[in-house]
């Protein structure tokens, strides 16, 4: 189907206009508003005590969530790609569940399970470990929403590379552990990297699930995203723009990593 030159141009500019008014112009406007008052003003707004503590909390959550996702995600992907067992289909469906569940419902679910009146309320009531309205709650919410990333990036790579090399290593007498470190891990490293990058970005950016389980106090339990909404609601528009720009930088880095990895994958 070949469009006449006129219709071709109309289609092109309609598509570009749609992306423009929806994505490009608003994003450009935020960048302009963030930097228009000068870099000094921008820096002052992202280095207030509340902002620094939000950055610390967000990075702390990332530092807990990413290793846990890798530690449990890689073995799960291995089991799904290499083994046949009963209930595999169910396991596959459960892994995709977090993508279909609203962040607010994630928050409700965690409150109902781990809150003081929930089935696991004894952790808080008897051991004094505050889950909901504490750091563990934020971590659990972040793991819930990021759980599929590492598994879904690593599993297809495992299918693609097959088992030839692993079997060869095994016949040559290497142990399971040696095979994993020398053969499997090096071949999944890019998929694993991308899965981890997506996990970092989503953890830093999660809002709905986190606001449900956090006490949202500036300086103690506010992550970067909670700080953005808190500042906006208090009428500090510029402060919200500055932190948004900071978070947007992370999103752009993710896109760059994605493009780079795509090119790399196509080459190999």
């Amino acid at each position, binding site marked *: *189907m070949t469009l006449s030159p006129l219709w071709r141009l109309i*289609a*092109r500019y309609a*598509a*570009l206009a*749609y*992306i423009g*008014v*929806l*994505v490009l*112009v*608003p*994003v450009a*406007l*935020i960048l302009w508003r963030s930097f228009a008052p000068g870099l000094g003003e921008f820096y002052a707004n992202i280095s207030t005590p509340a902002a620094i503590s939000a950055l610390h909390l967000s990075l702390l959550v990332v530092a807990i969530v990413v290793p846990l996702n890798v530690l*449990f995600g890689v*073995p*799960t992907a*291995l*089991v799904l790609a*290499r083994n046949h*067992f009963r*209930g595999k289909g169910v*396991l596959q469906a*459960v892994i995709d*569940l977090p993508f*279909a*569940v*609203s*962040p*607010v*419902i994630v*928050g*409700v*679910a*965690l409150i*109902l399970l781990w809150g003081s009146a929930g*089935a*696991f309320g004894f952790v808080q009531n008897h051991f004094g470990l505050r889950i909901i309205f504490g750091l563990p709650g934020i971590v*659990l919410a972040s*793991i*819930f929403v990021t759980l599929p990333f590492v598994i879904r990036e690593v599993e297809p790579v495992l299918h693609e590379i097959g088992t030839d090399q*692993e079997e060869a290593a095994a016949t040559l007498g290497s142990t*399971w552990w040696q095979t*994993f470190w020398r053969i499997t891990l090096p071949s999944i490293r890019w998929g694993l990297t991308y899965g981890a990058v997506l996990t970092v970005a989503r953890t830093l950016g*999660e*809002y*709905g699930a986190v606001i*449900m389980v956090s006490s949202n106090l500036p300086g103690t339990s506010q992550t970067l995203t909670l700080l*953005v*909404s808190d500042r*906006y*609601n208090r009428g500090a528009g510029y402060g*919200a*723009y500055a932190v*948004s720009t900071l*978070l947007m930088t992370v*999103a*752009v880095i993710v896109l760059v990593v*994605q493009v780079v990895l795509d090119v790399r994958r196509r080459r190999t």
Partner: protein
Amino acid sequence: MPARRGGTALRVGVATLWLSVIVLLPLAAIVWQSAKGGWSAFFSAVTSPSAVDSFRVTLTISAAVTVINMVFGLLVAWVLVRDDFPGKRLVDAVIDLPFALPTIVASVVLLALYGPSSPVGVHLQHTPYGVGAALLFVTLPFVVRAVQPVLLEVDQEAEQAAASLGAGNRIIFTRIILPALTPALLSGAGLAFSRAIGEFGSVVLIGGAVPGKTEVSSQWIRTLIENDDRTGAAAISIVLLAISFVVLFILRTLGSRTAKREELDR
């Protein structure tokens, strides 16, 4: 890797335990909470005027957003696959920005252009159109990314053959291209709809939770939790989850059936 029976069982066990603690048990807690309250509590929670209003707002806006997504998603995918212009790769990369951008940032970003301080004088804050714009923003990639790979694979020889037999663009589009794209289009639309009805972060600042006008169900759930009405929150959550699963299931079934019919036709 050499299959070891004991090893496999152990690893399946660990994976299942991890998924259960993180995903399944919390979701089971919602069902449990709702069951504890009994059928009448569930019924009164989901039929309360506020709940019904929130369902109406959520479903109307999400349905409209899904339709717009199908039209413009198809158009954008078409332009990215069949057209060529400088900067095309950049536009292609920008499509993924809404997935990479935190939802609350999406809210702030849209308010900069369509909020009270809009430089173009468009003021959508606290209107259903504002909620719609936020949902369009966060669901932009679904249809585009579902249709794009399929459009790349569409048999251009069939199109040329049809053209040589005198078929016009409209016939080629409705008889050859659209049928091939339908499964992908539907599954992209299903994902977009399911995302839209649960969306919270991007809607919260721009919508402002005006009851019956912009308050979506996810915001109503948050209000219920803040008022310590756990059973009510659980009931609304179950309805939202059920709608999203049913939509995804129907669209997937429709999609695979269309795909099968395509196979048979060939």
